[in-house]
């Protein structure tokens, strides 16, 4: 391994300490602990989303429902709910809704709207009405007056029959003719001494007598026929009279009670109309109240759930009775179709599923009607039929309860089609951004129903003012969760952690849930330490513990490097080899680790081979980064010569996929090193992507990458020369761990901001990259000059080879 050249001209200097970490500035807030701070709830740093929510909740037109998107853990629901609570309280309570029986078509229950809070009174009034009638009606029908009139009707009927039959019997008797009952009717026969004349005896009678008897019977048969034909008419007449009497009696008993029940609802026409329908039905079906005899017939009603009197009851679907003023805010966590649009329940009676209007149950849309319905978009999409039902309901502008089991053929029993209920609700869907963008791309109806997008920010700009706001948010979280107060230093560390979470020293994360978790864990540490106030050390302990709990994979990865299973040098130099850095994120925990990148070159057809891509381990972005290297070479060196290079690049000991272009600068350094045969320092690690002009571009996860290499170096012993080259654009993102900063402060580790490939290669090789002189050539001893010379040499070899008639079959 080559020694580090000491004569190199290095222009890139290590970053100053103040660029590695930006401490919190709480100078705008005077407080000792969070108990002194006025807490903040709701939307912090979300002006864009707040404006959208404000607009979306106030605009009244259909389709202007809200789709709220943002990062996981931003607690969008809580923030939006807090905003809605204030708005909801200013609006009048929506109306109550009930379902009542449809007496003409029981399968289509009738929906009635009542002023807020009146449904319970209506239900009570109807219940009491029926309760009273259950005792009042039988009493009226058992009264002497009724029984007398009823008896008179029955008696008149009986008398008519009796008189007719008595007359017939008398007439027959005078002629010794008897009336007999046969199994199917009546017959007339000659009788003598209390029995029918036996046939043998009849045969002995003189012909004249037999003829006379037959003639008499023939005459009497006509009379009998006439009477028997009259009976159904008399019976009908009797039934009509009884029915009319029952109607009159029932009306007399019912009228007063109905009028009393109606008195409280004269202002609601729909209710009074229904009560009138009940009156008519009661009069027609009074037998239900009166006939409790043992002779009761088993009919269809026997299969109906509940009692026959249930038909007069009121099913309260939604009531505002007992609710706070204002419109409802309903959050449905399990938006199945039934939970969303309501459902029709069934009862099993004798093995048959039956239902009625009382088994119609409200859904979240009913409960939220007039107010706000909060739904998680992913949950809605995961439930069969819910998403389409929600859109259909919003388009119809009314809630129609659909029995899904019928659609999919699970039941074939008779069901209900309740009246649809007009819908006036503001639906607020919550989801992550990907879900929203996918829906927007694939569901053309999304825009029709969710016209207002509220996009929550992941972070906000970090200024003393915003830090003060976040400190109050911390106070709010601590207060709401019953945590100990946090002292000033602890709050400062929480804010600094918020910046780290934002991956930016100049920003603060707004992912409130992540902050809340840290606060709770810090409170736990303070409790263990028997402190009344959470100190900075508690926050540090909590953060360290969080990492410790999640870092098993990181530790194993570092272990294999330290055990030289994975080959990573942290000292010396090597041609065509460089330490790249990658970030792995598993289960919400991200860590960096170094990866050896190597390059081999030889004459060829101008191709830079990305081995990762060849074996399909490289993703498209990574491949793009490698192809950019060809562009860089083509634009920088030997412009007058065909590119005659074959180079292969590989991430050594990488057995999983590689994606991203953050290692493209490292790959270029390895390529240049290989071409120039210039050894590169192995005590440095590199991250950053590169463009075709050689400019180093920003990458993600810079803190984790630096810390990943630092951990390996520290474990092996810091040499004082070790460090990491990062894109200059990433300096603003640095919020490094305290131990890294301490090492930098001690001069045993360094972070180098690099803007160009020339800066980086100079630092890594210890040699100036070299600039083209006025003659257009790089200085021969510069690294660029050596690269160009090598490329020209490759071209020359190739030309010679072609001239000698060699067939170019190389790569």
């Amino acid at each position, binding site marked *: 391994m080559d020694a580090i050249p000491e004569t190199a001209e290095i222009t890139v200097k290590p970053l100053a300490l103040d660029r590695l970490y930006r401490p919190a500035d709480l100078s705008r807030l005077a407080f000792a602990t969070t108990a002194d701070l006025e807490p903040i709830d709701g939307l912090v740093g979300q002006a864009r989303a707040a404006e959208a929510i404000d607009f979306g909740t106030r605009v009244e037109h259909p389709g202007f429902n809200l789709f709220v998107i943002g990062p996981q853990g931003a607690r969008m629901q809580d923030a939006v709910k807090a905003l809605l609570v204030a708005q909801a309280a200013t609006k009048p309570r929506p109306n109550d809704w009930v379902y009542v029986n449809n007496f003409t078509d029981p399968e289509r229950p009738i929906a009635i709207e009542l002023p807020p809070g009146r449904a319970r009174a209506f239900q009570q009034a109807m219940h009491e009405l029926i309760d009273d009638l259950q005792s009042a009606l039988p009493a009226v029908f058992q009264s002497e007056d009724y029984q007398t009139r009823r008896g008179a009707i029955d008696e008149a009927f009986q008398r008519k029959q009796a008189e007719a039959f008595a007359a017939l019997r008398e007439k027959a008797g005078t002629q010794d003719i008897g009336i007999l009952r046969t199994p199917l009717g009546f017959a007339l026969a000659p009788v003598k001494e209390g029995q029918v004349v036996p*046939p043998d005896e009849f045969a002995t009678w003189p012909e004249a007598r037999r003829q006379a008897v037959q003639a008499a019977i023939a005459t009497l048969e006509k009379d009998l026929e006439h009477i028997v034909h009259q009976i159904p008419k008399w019976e009908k007449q009797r039934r009509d009279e009884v029915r009319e009497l029952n109607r009159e009696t029932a009306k007399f008993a019912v009228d007063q009670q109905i009028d009393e029940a109606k008195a409280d609802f004269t202002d609601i026409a729909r209710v009074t109309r229904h009560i009138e329908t009940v009156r008519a039905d009661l009069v027609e079906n009074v037998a239900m109240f009166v006939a409790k005899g043992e002779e009761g017939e088993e009919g269809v009603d026997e299969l109906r759930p509940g009692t026959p009197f249930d038909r007069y009851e009121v099913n309260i679907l939604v009531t505002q009775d007992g609710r706070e003023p204002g419109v409802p805010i309903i959050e449905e966590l399990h938006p199945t179709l039934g939970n969303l649009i309501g459902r029709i329940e069934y009862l099993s009676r004798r093995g048959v599923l039956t239902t009625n209007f009382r088994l119609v149950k409200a859904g979240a849309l009913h409960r939220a009607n007039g107010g706000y319905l909060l739904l998680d978009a992913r949950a809605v999409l995961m439930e069969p039929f819910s998403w389409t039902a929600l859109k259909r309901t919003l388009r119809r502008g009314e809630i129609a309860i659909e029995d899904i089991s019928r659609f999919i053929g699970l039941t074939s029993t008779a069901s209900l089609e309740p009246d649809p209920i007009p819908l006036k609700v503001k639906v607020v869907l919550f989801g992550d951004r990907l879900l929203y963008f996918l829906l927007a791309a694939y569901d053309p109806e999304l825009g029709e129903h969710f016209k207002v997008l509220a996009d929550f920010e992941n972070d906000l700009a970090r200024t003393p003012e915003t830090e003060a706001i976040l400190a109050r948010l911390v106070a709010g979280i601590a207060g709401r969760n019953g945590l100990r107060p946090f002292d000033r230093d602890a709050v400062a560390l929480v804010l600094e952690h918020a910046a780290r979470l934002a991956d930016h020293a100049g920003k603060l994360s707004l992912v409130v849930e992540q902050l809340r978790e840290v606060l709770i864990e810090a409170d736990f540490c303070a409790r263990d330490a028997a402190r009344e106030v959470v100190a900075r050390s508690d926050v540090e302990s909590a953060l360290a513990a969080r990492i410790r709990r999640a870092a098993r994979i990181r530790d194993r990865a570092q272990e294999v490097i330290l055990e030289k299973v994975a080959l990573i040098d942290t000292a010396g130099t090597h041609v065509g080899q460089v330490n790249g850095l990658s970030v792995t994120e598993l289960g919400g925990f991200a860590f960096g680790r170094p990866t050896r990148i190597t390059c081999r070159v030889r004459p060829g057809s101008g191709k830079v081979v990305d081995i990762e891509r060849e074996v399909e381990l490289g993703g498209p972005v990574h491949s793009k980064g490698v192809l950019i290297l060809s562009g860089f070479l083509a634009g920088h060196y030997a412009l007058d010569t065909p590119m005659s290079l074959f180079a292969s690049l590989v991430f050594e000991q990488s057995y999983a996929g590689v994606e991203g272009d953050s290692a493209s600068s490292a790959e270029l350094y390895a390529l240049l090193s290989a071409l120039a045969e210039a050894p590169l320092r192995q005590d440095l690690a590199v991250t950053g992507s590169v463009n075709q002009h050689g400019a180093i571009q920003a990458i993600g996860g810079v803190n984790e990458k630096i810390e990943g290499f630092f951990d390996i170096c520290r474990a092996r012993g810091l040499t004082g020369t070790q460090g990491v080259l990062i894109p200059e654009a990433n300096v603003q993102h640095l919020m490094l761990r305290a131990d890294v900063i301490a090492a930098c402060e001690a001069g045993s580790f360094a972070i180098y901001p690099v803007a160009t490939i020339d800066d980086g290669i100079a630092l890594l090789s210890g040699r100036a990259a070299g600039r083209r002189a006025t003659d257009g050539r790089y200085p021969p001893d510069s690294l660029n000059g050596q690269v160009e010379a090598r490329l020209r040499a490759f071209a020359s070899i190739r030309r010679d080879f072609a001239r000698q008639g060699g067939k170019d079959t190389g790569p």
Partner: protein
Amino acid sequence: MTMAAHGFKRIVLRLQPRVPDRTARLAVELAELLDLDLLGLFLDDTSLRDLASLPFARELRTLGGGWQPLDIERLSRELDTAARSAERLFAEMAQRIPARCRFEVVRGSPRTAIEATSRVGDIVVILEPGSPSERFTDQFSWLSDAAFRSAAAVLLVPPRIARTIGPIVAVAAAPDDPCIDTALVIAAAAKEELVVIEAHADAGPGAPLPAMATERGVRVRRVSLGPAGAANTALLAGALERIPVRLIVLTQGAFDRAVATAIASAQQVPVLVLEPRPPDAASERAASL
């Protein structure tokens, strides 16, 4: 006095194709209360067979069909079917006291069948038809006449029974009217109150009550109508109106059959009509009670 003091041994229930539940229950309950046998009697009416054998015989079918010839074979089949149906019905009714129940098919005219079957110690149940058309048939008339002429007591059952609980009423035409004893036995067995309606001249609070009333703890109430009571049915009906009666017991002779039928019909409760006590038995009564 023993439980058999009432002198009954058997209830004879004529089974028709359709016997109302309450009537069936009444017969079974009474048999149970008084520890009696129950005879289910199906009458294979020969008067119908005789009629069917006449060349001009035909029937008017009430449920449509008009006049149809009476075919003796069809009639026989229908009667056989009805007999089997009656037997099944009786078996169901008799489940509570299977050992004491017997079913019998008796062939003959209604009159001869009852005369042949009923005897002293029987209670013949006569179910009053609900329809006047049935009531005015000769068969019912013959049946009813035969029952009243027989040595058996007759239980007149109205088409609809208003009550199954309440006092047992004895309508006594004389201080020693046997209906008082019978009603007392039934009241004791049924644990009901006994109401004695006194329709005779000796009525009054001073008249003695049967000793068993005290022995059995039967509560006895007296309603006095005076000597006119037996003749004045309106007076009797007025008295009965005021009592939520379960069963009325009276003695044939003091009241004619029409009165008993009218009471059963008006009060909608069963009326048990007893045979008058033979003169010699009446004289022994004081000693046995």
